[in-house]
């Protein structure tokens, strides 16, 4: 007997999209949240722009102790988690806590605090033998990536399997994929899943500068993130977090829960090619898409929308276009494919989960979010990228793909329950 997995709650902290209603407004309006960096003085950096969240943790129910103890990326996860659990209508007090799991992704975890305290203990980079007496009380929590899932599990009193997933830029899709498997395999009935990252810091901006992965369009930040456009020149750093409540479908139905959609399938493969480089064929991403479709028992022609990785680097968008064409065949040309990174930037490990929230909302509203800033076609990117304006469309099944450092290629299929097909 196959256990089916439903999405019953959504929460999100995205740039200019804190909370599901604001997030969906941003996407359906096609506005962009990218701007000049305000968190620190970016002088000297090649890329001085980012999509920052104007996030007030106190307004999202975090108390002063939590605010002091938790790194920003964990605060995002707590806020998104509150929203998602509330949205699900679950009363976790009556659920068996041993059947509640947590699976959360992050690419760079606590590096922002690690860097902050490093500056203190090293006298601004002068000493290798760092002075331990200068550190703050919470540094060890920043050091351990497990702090993310642990803190969220403590908040919701989950006692089932709790794990942090850290596969770089596919962390968000992979964390939700692991959650899907956890419920499908019967190891939990409920999983609080998603991802979070707050990478807008000098060291992270500098390390992407060093490989020219980020956009240097500093004089026009609002139009800097240009996935699939011929004039794209790198991604724009973002930050944020998203949480989805996954639940075994019968468990959800028994309590009369609203089911946004099902997780139909998830797969990930490595390209075994290069830590940051991509092949032009997209073979491994195509394979992940095919595998996810097989699990969902869907034909490729059933895909109504592709939520792209669409980072806006030259090579990514070509690679991905090739992969989607390889996996969907001629149907790729009839399928809208857009990148919300054009609006909210690329929040590394978090973005995959933010994009899955966007997919669930697309299915709910029967609307495809656009690719903002898309103006000039690239001959090598010849699919329908939904330029600038959201589009109404009948949607039953959607695909979200991700690609990341390490060569990881992941795909998730979300679909409306067959019984509710439109």
């Amino acid at each position, binding site marked *: 007997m196959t256990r089916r997995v439903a999405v019953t709650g959504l929460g999100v902290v995205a740039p200019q999209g804190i909370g599901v209603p604001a997030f969906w407004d941003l996407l359906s309006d096609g506005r962009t949240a990218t701007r000049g960096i305000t968190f620190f003085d970016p002088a*000297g*950096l090649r890329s001085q722009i980012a999509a920052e969240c104007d996030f007030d943790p106190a307004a999202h129910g975090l108390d002063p102790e939590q605010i002091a103890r938790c790194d920003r990326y964990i605060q995002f996860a707590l806020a998104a988690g509150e929203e998602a659990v509330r949205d699900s209508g679950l009363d976790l007090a009556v659920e068996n806590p*041993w059947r509640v799991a*947590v699976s959360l992704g992050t*690419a760079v975890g606590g590096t922002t605090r690690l*860097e902050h305290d*490093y*500056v203190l*203990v*090293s006298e*601004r*980079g*002068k000493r*290798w*033998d*760092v002075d*331990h007496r200068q550190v703050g009380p*919470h*540094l*060890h929590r*920043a050091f*351990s*990536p*497990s*702090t993310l899932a*642990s803190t969220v*599990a*403590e908040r919701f009193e*989950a*006692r*089932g*399997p*709790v*794990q*942090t*997933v*850290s*596969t*770089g830029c596919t962390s968000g899709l*992979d964390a939700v994929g*692991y959650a899907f*498997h956890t419920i499908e395999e019967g*190891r939990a009935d409920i999983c609080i899943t998603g991802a979070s990252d707050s990478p807008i810091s*000098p*060291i992270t*901006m500098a*390390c*992407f*500068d060093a*490989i020219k992965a980020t956009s240097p369009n500093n004089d026009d930040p609002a139009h800097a993130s240009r996935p699939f456009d011929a004039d794209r020149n790198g991604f724009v750093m973002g930050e944020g977090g998203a949480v989805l409540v996954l639940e075994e479908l019968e468990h959800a139905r028994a309590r009369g829960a609203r089911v946004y959609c099902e997780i139909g399938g998830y797969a*990930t*493969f*490595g*390209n*075994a090619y290069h*830590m940051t480089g991509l092949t032009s064929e997209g073979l491994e991403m195509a394979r992940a898409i095919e595998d996810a479709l097989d699990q969902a028992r869907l034909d490729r022609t059933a895909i109504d929308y592709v939520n792209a990785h669409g980072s806006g680097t030259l090579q990514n968008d070509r690679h991905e276009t090739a992969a989607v064409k390889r996996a969907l065949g001629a149907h790729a040309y009839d399928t809208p494919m857009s990148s919300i990174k054009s609006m909210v930037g690329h929040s590394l490990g978090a973005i995959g989960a933010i994009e899955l929230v966007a997919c669930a909302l697309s299915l709910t509203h029967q609307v495809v979010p656009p690719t903002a800033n898309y103006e000039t076609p690239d001959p090598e990117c010849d699919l329908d990228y939904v330029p600038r304006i959201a589009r109404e469309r009948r949607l039953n099944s959607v695909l979200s793909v991700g690609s990341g*450092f*390490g*060569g*990881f290629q992941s795909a998730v299929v979300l679909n409306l329950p067959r019984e509710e097909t439109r």
Partner: protein
Amino acid sequence: MSGHPRRAAITGIGVVAPNGTSTDTFWKSTKEGISALDRITREGCGHLPLRVAGEVRDFDPPALVEERYLVQTDRFTHFAMAAADQALDDAGLGRSDTDAAPFSVGVVTAAGSGGGEFGQRELQQLWDKGSRFVGPYQSIAWFYAASTGQISIRRGFKGPCGVVAADEAGGLDAVAHAARAVRRGTDVLVAGATEAPLAPYSMVCQLGYEELSTVDDPERAYRPFTAAACGFVPAEGGAMLVVESEDLARERGASVRATVAGHAATFTGASRWEESRQGLAQAVLGALAEADCAPEDIDVVFADALGTPEADRAEALAIVDALGAHGTRVPVTAPKTGTGRSYAAAPVLEVAAAVLALEHGLIPPTPNVFDACHDLDLVSSRARAAELRTALILSRGLMGSNSALVLRRGAGDAS
């Protein structure tokens, strides 16, 4: 579904540990109870109030890994690449075997400390000299996924790639993740964890753990289950395993060293050791149920052995809670007192030791622990010969995860 479910076999072991940088040397030190704990010698650490650790000292990366991979990776990934090579050699899987079907070989690692030494060097460049002095490899050396990605690329593996970071217990979760991937249809996974948390800034980060031992005598710094328990000693190194479909291993004539029979994980809150008693017991019961195994079937327990009185008491009680009266009779060991705890890698080393113990019919001892004060049959000063079929490995993380894994010797059944 038809046919029996695919079982996951361990067919190869690779070890880079403080007490041995090959499986043979590791097993020799482990069974003889030789402790590798010592004063820290790493540059820039002498002034820190953390004096004892398990350092990997006889490890020569250029002799083992190509220059182009070394320059773009941290020490934790050097360990991982070397251990993965050993494990694949041990399993008899060469490039010609894996190149034939790259999508059927995946990689899953657990990571808890990332590329700390590399990261500290690049942070120093940034803050001392400026952003233009940050090198091109910082973005791929520091992050937790570095080892999985580099093993996949270096060996040409395109199968499912994963990285879990569920603190110490994550090491067991990674092995279990690999076993589940085999059940889902992937033929082979290279799975495990290696850590290198002994760079100065990484050490400073760990000072916040209240369970850390700051005793400066290597023989007294890590003594779990004794009245003198004073915390744990950190370590570097780890192990990688080849986990593959048992049927396919037999088809290609590989030796099935052990099967991964059961696993379960729970969570009871960071540093809430008293509550870990129930969490660990639940994990053991879950793992036994998946392995279809009675408590009496467990022939040896590899304990988490954190080394604080509260945590040790919780573990001793959890073993009895889960195994009943058998829990006070079953031999319990914790060879990690001779290597220190290499975070997520520590329980993978224990899995390696457990496979070797099952094979040799020999329970390795718990170095420096000879006066246990709990109601356990702790294998203390010297190894004990025993007929071993089934081993239980326990792990808990500082952030609150509890995990249990059941291994069976050799093939899963006689068929």
